[in-house]
């Protein structure tokens, strides 16, 4: 019924359909980062400290005897300050805020940095209770980053606090 020309035309068009699908199913290829680049991923999820205040003896005296705790701790958690330095130069600095309506949840960060592969002095400092000055967690090390390597900077009290992985 169909003319030969129509059949050839149909075959060409279905071929074009297949070629279109086949091509865009894998091509053009995509490279997210250049060849000589490594990634540093800074990510943590940590509960900040409580900003407790010592009650004065007068305050304590005013409280019923069963509630005379020496410290007054609000429900909210402290912000967390975080500094990342590469070869002594600051690369990233942030203050993470606790989540949750009453600010009693974890503070989180997730950041991805692209750096040229090579050897660096990497340091990360954290203060998880801003009632105190300075940094109560510090981790510093020389790291050698191979191309495409992903170095994770994370925090886990079970792994001794800040760590590189």
């Amino acid at each position, binding site marked *: 019924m169909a003319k030969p020309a129509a059949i050839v035309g149909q075959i060409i068009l279905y071929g074009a359909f297949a070629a279109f699908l086949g091509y865009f*199913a894998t091509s053009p290829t995509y*490279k997210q980062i250049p060849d000589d680049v490594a990634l540093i991923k800074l990510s943590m999820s940590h509960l900040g400290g409580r900003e407790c205040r010592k009650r004065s003896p007068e305050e304590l005296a005013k409280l019923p005897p069963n509630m005379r705790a020496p410290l007054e701790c609000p429900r909210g958690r402290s912000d967390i300050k975080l500094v990342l330095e590469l070869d002594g130069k600051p690369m990233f600095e942030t203050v993470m805020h606790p989540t949750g309506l009453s600010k009693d949840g974890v503070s989180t960060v997730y950041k991805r940095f692209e750096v040229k592969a090579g050897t660096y002095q990497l340091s990360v400092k954290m203060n998880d209770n801003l009632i105190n000055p300075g940094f109560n967690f510090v981790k510093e090390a020389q790291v050698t980053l191979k191309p495409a*390597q992903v170095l994770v900077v994370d925090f886990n009290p079970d792994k001794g606090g800040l760590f590189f992985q």
Partner: protein
Amino acid sequence: MSLHAALRGNAQILLERSENSLDALFGGADNPLRHLGALGLYFLWILVATGLYLYTVLDTSVEGVYTSIGYLSREQWYLGGILRSLHRYASDAFVLVMMLHLAREWAYGRYHGFRLYSWVTGVPLIWLVYISGIGGYWIVWDRLAQFSAIATTELLDWLPFFTEPTARNFLAPDSVNDRLFTVLVFIHIGVPLMLILGLWAHVNRISRVDYLPSRRVMLATLASFLALALIKPALSDAPANLALAPAELRLDWFFLFIHPLTDVTSPAAVWALLFGATILLFALPFLPHLKAQPIAVVDAANCNGCSRCHADCPYEAVTMAVHPGKRGHKIAIVDPDLCAGCGICAGSCPSSTPFRSQEKLVTGIDMPQQPVDVMRRQLETQLARLGTQPSGTTKLVVFGCDKGADVRGLAAADTAAISLLCTGMLPPSFVEYALRGGADGIVVTGCRDGGCDFRLGMQWTQERLAHQREPHLRSLVPQDRLRLVYASRSESRQLAAAIDEFRTQLETQTAISNRPPAYSRRTPHHG
């Protein structure tokens, strides 16, 4: 004219031209552009069938997913590998036809009024398709999966929904566990189930849904997928390793284009685009449009409950109820929310015959904007006009449709032209009436196969004229005095040429059948 209207108009012309030129190769029934929704459903069945097989061999542990899928492509390439490739290419093709289907419905302005429901139920399907498609790529757990998982979670984390960044789930090799893949498979099966449910709703208000494309189209597309499966089988990338950033990736642009797009713009821009486009699509039908067509009206006295209008309505707008006046009979009821105002029901009603003697022709179901009585009066006036032509003139009556090639412009001394809401509105008895009232030939024209604005108008017309569907043309009408011409809106010239050819044929062929016996309705002014 607004920018949107201009864009839409150009898109419509472009699509019409492409469809018409593909008709030349495929014919309407086999023209894929005219059956995009049906192609989508067909691809979905391929996805379900191949997906079931893939599921049975999948090992959902962290190490197992990669090896169990890789096994299919390497050791079992002749079965599992091919099914895997079919699964991949059918999903890419699904995205392609879905987008074309959307573009087509938009270009033809089929998104408001009685189609609002189809349109609005279509939009969320796009999200479901992308969620299951992107998730599907993660299950392979190769470098591409790793890249997509991280890029997607980074994108999600831009939204203020999660207390912990979801990208932390893919931080280091020990972050992923077996449970992840159980969840992924659950999503990858659950979301398509929602999609199927959504599609059921999508076509719920349409009767005689174009559920599957023609056998030829099904075979040809399946053959295309099979050829791809053999020439370019779907393969995994290297296994995922979260300690390494993936190098060059063979990206599936149908689904994963979103990641490069995020990289060159920003998460904020991508979300703005996705939510913006979704809102725009939802809002489109609510923009000001021409007033909706008046809907069909049933006249109880002239409805005998034959159910033909119920059978022919393309939008399931007619239901049958107990007749209030005629015992043991039914009556047609029109649902105003569903009625498209196409008039196809008026063309199907046995009471729509112009041979009835009433001065005012009242039929069972009629269109207020163009009642059959007006059609009859129009035809009678035209026949009277043609009757004043010198004898020997070949007098034609052309019935056409407001949505197809314009027929009004064809009116001439020897040609009467009557344009209907839809050609499907033409009761076949009008053809007989015109021939018996003095016309030498009748042309019935409407949109091409698969192009009818009201989906089924031309199909019913063709079947009625060919004695295959009630109400059919009586057999005393010779088929060689009748010509059915398919012409879309942009094909007025082709239509004129076809009419000229028909006229020449009537004039030159000696073997042409006689006209049926003359008939003239007794009207009061004829005495």
